[in-house]
């Protein structure tokens, strides 16, 4: 389980490797908030290498999105596999986020 942050253009891209769950979501939250603090405004979380996400992981995405919006920025998501897509649909969180099929497509429009 690890989170890797990389800058692509003016977008901070976060790779989530493994699970995003109650045991590690604080780490993701802190890493992203640190970047907001430094002035970053555009964030993309790429789930290509993600296993499953629990409700507390979803909760962190919601709260990060809110916080980033408060700073005039945006959090987008990319590369959800079928299971994750289902999870976002079940919780209707697919209506809250802009979700792209691939990282490239997400970066294009950002």
């Amino acid at each position: 389980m690890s989170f890797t942050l990389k800058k692509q253009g003016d977008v901070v891209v976060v790779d989530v490797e493994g699970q995003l769950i109650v045991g590690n979501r604080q780490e993701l939250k802190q890493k992203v908030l640190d970047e907001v603090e430094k002035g970053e405004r555009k964030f993309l979380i790429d789930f290509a290498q993600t296993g499953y996400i629990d409700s507390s992981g979803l909760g962190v995405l919601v709260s990060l999105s809110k916080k980033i919006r408060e700073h005039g920025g945006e959090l987008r998501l990319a590369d959800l596999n079928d299971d994750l897509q289902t999870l976002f649909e079940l919780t209707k969180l697919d209506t809250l986020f802009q979700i792209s099929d691939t990282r490239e497509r997400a970066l294009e429009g950002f």
Partner: protein
Amino acid sequence: MREPHVVRAPSIKPASGLPAAHETHGEPRPGVSQPRLNEPRVAVDVDIPSDVSQIERVVSLVTDLCRDLSLPKRHYTLNIPVALSEALSNAIIRGNHEDPSKYVHLRATVSDVALVIDVTDEGSGFDMRDIAHDPTSPEDLQREDGRGLFLMRQLMDRVEQIHGPHHILRLTLNR
């Protein structure tokens, strides 16, 4: 449900330790014959320290078991890992308040008809019927918490509580 691991020969009646189709709930009915087993039937018991860092590995353990027993792929990549994580984190955080002197017990049984997971904590319990809000409603969609029971109910065929000396949450997923 658990007893000391003493050197004693078990009586072998297939499925006696495991739920058969007709006895997933309640006492086995006398006179009802046991269905023939064509597949291994499995029960796993896990004692888990009240530490959320244990969840991932316990979930792997159960999902690997389900894969080995040929449950549908989606079950062990989505339904089970998510619902079980919820049940375990509620038991560890809400039930046991992460008290290191307390444990969570998991019992998962896989029969030909269903996966049944009991998660027992040492807390004072709660009443599931009180948790009926809809986290997908516009008012609640932006809330950070409150999606745990909702997800379990969505992803499992049945979510039940057993109130006894300890609080048990039972998740059932039909095969």
